[in-house]
């Protein structure tokens, strides 16, 4: 039997970017918040030995312990879903800071086109451009409406970047200037300019210069040490909830942060929540935390799973397309890259940063004409320099064996002489790609795991085919000695694909029939429950999701305050 605790105004599930921003905004406004985090507390001092590729990247030190909780996966409804037993594809954060501690820091805004994708696609290409089984829909909020929240997030995190003409209008320039340009970025810049494109330096949460944010948090500039993705920044240069919003919330005295607290259920009567049940992961003891407002701010998968396991909201049904929880799960398509090998050039690729790179805007969204192609949206075409760590980077030209004498020789020969032109493509929602509860497998607390039914669609495959030609053309213009272009998108493999941008499952919109949340991320079906995170995206764009997640978190924080004052459904 769970021990019942005194009621609090707001309980937040998960202390990553979403939960951290909500906690920070509410506590600054004088509202008492209890933050529940299943992992441990963390800050920069935990990363003194952080430059350890094996421990952090290959043994997933900062990631969710899959022995306690994972997902199951099947490519389609005819298959039996089986658990993702170890990491191979997406990585899921854990602990204070969540995925915001181990991310790379690439911080984009989505396009005006993204927020009104259905309307704009129908208008320009007619209602039959896509098969109706692609369940694209507008977000219930325009770019103009979300723009101020992007601005707030970028100022809080100190995002470094440069204004891009082909993207949405900005009320302010980025708070800090763009990151440095390295020789491989210069090569991409020159080649793409020759081809008539307009390259820009990727917007970055790794600070390009020292910066003090509006909350009074000061951070120092990035040192390009090459340990971002999968790693925490021992220096605090990378924007991380643990060095930005969470310290601000703590300082108010209004945040009570409880770590090792894994929420397993939202208590509710179908239309309102009364609190949550959580397990102390160390002692196994269960607690009931009553609250006026429940904010679900954990990772995409767990946001959907917690609602499904709590019987909150109507589960999605692929047979008739009704219901919303689990709907429009999206990933990204990143296969269309061209790997370049150089015989006589060596680059200082051992250095870099998670958000160090350069990209062109011409092939994203509807920035090019789709009349003659069998897909919509597009991809960011880019060169990045994260820092090539030696276990992960043993890239050899096609046809080279994967082990033995030739492998060793070639992998050493090219260790500092290769880089790819990459493509990060948007993923459109599809009727038969969704999340629901697994009928067989359970987590460490006896609750059903989340089941993912997902495979790449024809739309995804067409996009990859098209973008591979673009990356190949740029690689040729750069002038590599060997170019290996990947032209095809294979089947989704839960153990191999490495894009980690999961979205959807608890999506926002303007119609309660087709969405779970309004534009404040308040549930249509339960007015005192807000579900914050990339789970709210109705589709996945070609950009990294954190900028949009951050903007929506500020929007939700505003909605929660409004709800506390006024009550009711906010729109």
């Amino acid at each position, binding site marked *: 039997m769970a021990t019942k605790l005194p009621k609090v105004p707001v309980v937040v599930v998960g202390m990553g970017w979403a939960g951290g921003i909500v906690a920070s905004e509410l506590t600054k406004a004088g509202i008492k918040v209890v933050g529940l985090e299943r992992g441990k507390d963390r800050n920069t001092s935990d990363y003194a030995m952080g430059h350890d590729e094996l421990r952090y990247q290959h043994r997933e030190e900062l990631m969710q312990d899959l022995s306690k909780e994972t997902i199951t996966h099947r490519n389609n409804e005819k298959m039996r879903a089986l658990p993702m037993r170890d990491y191979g594809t997406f990585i899921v954060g854990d602990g204070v800071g969540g995925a915001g501690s181990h991310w790379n820091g690439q911080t984009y805004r989505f396009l005006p086109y993204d927020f009104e994708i259905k309307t704009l696609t129908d208008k320009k290409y007619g209602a039959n451009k896509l098969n109706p089984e692609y369940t694209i829909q507008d977000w219930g909020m325009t770019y103009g409406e979300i723009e101020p929240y992007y601005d707030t997030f970028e100022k809080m995190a100190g995002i470094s970047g440069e204004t891009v003409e082909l993207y949405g209008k900005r009320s302010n320039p980025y708070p800090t200037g763009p990151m440095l340009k390295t020789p491989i970025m210069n090569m991409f810049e020159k080649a793409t300019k020759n081809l008539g494109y307009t390259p820009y330096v990727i917007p970055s949460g790794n600070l390009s210069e020292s910066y003090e944010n509006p909350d009074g948090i000061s951070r120092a500039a990035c040192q390009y040490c090459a340990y971002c993705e999968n790693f925490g920044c021992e220096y605090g240069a990378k924007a991380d909830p643990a060095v930005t919003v969470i310290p601000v919330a703590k300082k108010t005295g209004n945040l009570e942060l409880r770590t090792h607290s894994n929420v397993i259920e939202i208590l509710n009567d179908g239309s309102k929540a009364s609190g949550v049940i959580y397990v102390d992961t160390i002692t196994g003891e269960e607690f009931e935390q009553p609250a006026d407002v429940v904010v679900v701010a954990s990772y995409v998968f767990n946001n959907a799973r917690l609602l499904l396991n709590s019987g909150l909201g109507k589960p999605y049904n692929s047979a008739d397309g009704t219901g919303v929880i689990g709907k429009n799960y999206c990933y990204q398509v990143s296969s269309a890259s061209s790997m370049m090998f150089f015989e006589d050039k060596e680059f200082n690729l051992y250095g870099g940063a998670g958000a160090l790179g350069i990209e062109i805007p011409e092939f994203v969204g509807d920035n090019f004409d789709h009349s003659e192609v069998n897909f919509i949206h597009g991809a960011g075409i880019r060169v990045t320099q994260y820092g090539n760590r030696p276990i992960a980077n043993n890239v050899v030209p096609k046809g080279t064996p994967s082990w033995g*004498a030739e492998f060793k*020789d070639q992998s050493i020969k090219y260790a500092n002489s290769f880089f790819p032109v990459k493509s990060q493509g948007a993923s459109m929602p599809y009727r038969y790609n969704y999340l629901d509860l697994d009928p067989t*497998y359970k987590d460490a607390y006896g609750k059903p795991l989340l089941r993912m039914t997902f495979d790449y669609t024809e739309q995804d495959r067409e996009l990859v085919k098209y973008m591979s030609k673009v990356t190949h053309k740029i690689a040729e213009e750069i002038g590599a000695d060997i170019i290996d272009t990947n032209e095809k998108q294979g089947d*989704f493999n839960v*153990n191999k694909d490495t894009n980690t941008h999961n979205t959807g499952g608890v999506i926002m919109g303007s119609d309660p029939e087709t969405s779970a949340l309004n534009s404040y991320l308040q549930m249509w079906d339960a007015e005192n429950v807000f579900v914050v995170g990339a789970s709210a995206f109705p589709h996945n764009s070609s950009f990294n999701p954190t900028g949009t997640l951050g903007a929506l978190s500020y929007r939700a924080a505003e909605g929660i305050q409004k709800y506390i004052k006024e009550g009711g459904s906010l729109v």
Partner: protein
Amino acid sequence: MAEHENGKISQRGSTRRVFLKNSGLTVGGVVLGGALGSLLGGSSEPASHTAPAAPALTVNPAEALMFFTPEQYQLTQAAAERIYPKDDNGPGAMELNAAIYIDHQLASPWGINSKEYMAGPFYKAEETQGSQIRILRKDLFLLGLKSLDAYSSKKFESNFIDLAPEDQDLVLTDFSEGKAPDISGVKSTLFFNLLRSMTIEGVYADPVYGGNKNMEGWAMRKFPGSRMTYTQEIQKEQFVKLDPQGLNSHMSH
């Protein structure tokens, strides 16, 4: 070059067997493990280093076994060396202590899959669903080693360690392609992939884990290891070569 060097390795294995036979520490040609085998650890090790013998007490104390028997260790050394052989670039997996690394990893929580979802039921997976086996890494590795010898004996009438490098490669190729017999119901590819990835880790992980001896794995590919800043270097057109630094260089911070 590589073949020549590995000829030496193979010969070394043979030499050890000859020594064992002559010293009477085998029964029916099978090398004895256990206490008898361990007596030999000291005598066979110095012979495997080409450098002049350093005083024994300065040897890295991490160069000791937590998991393998000495025989399993030597077999792992031989197999890892074929994945990452000594060549003109520099030392191979054997000299870099990749097998020490593998030993230590298999003895760690990772060897018992402690962060993985291990609850049943187990079903045969489609190719897109990742590994669905109950066998722990430490057990798969030992079964794989046994299978390596059994398959070598069947194919070439000799244990793996005594084969010529070319024949060792043929055996490993069959494992990598799943042509060797299943290992307790598991495709031989799975054991091979484990051996391959652990060897790569063993030559390139920070030396704190027991491999990448003297950071020579890093030095071969001009990787400087772990430093606090590369702000200057990344802007330079010319390659800037820096001596590798390990995690222990961070202990003073």
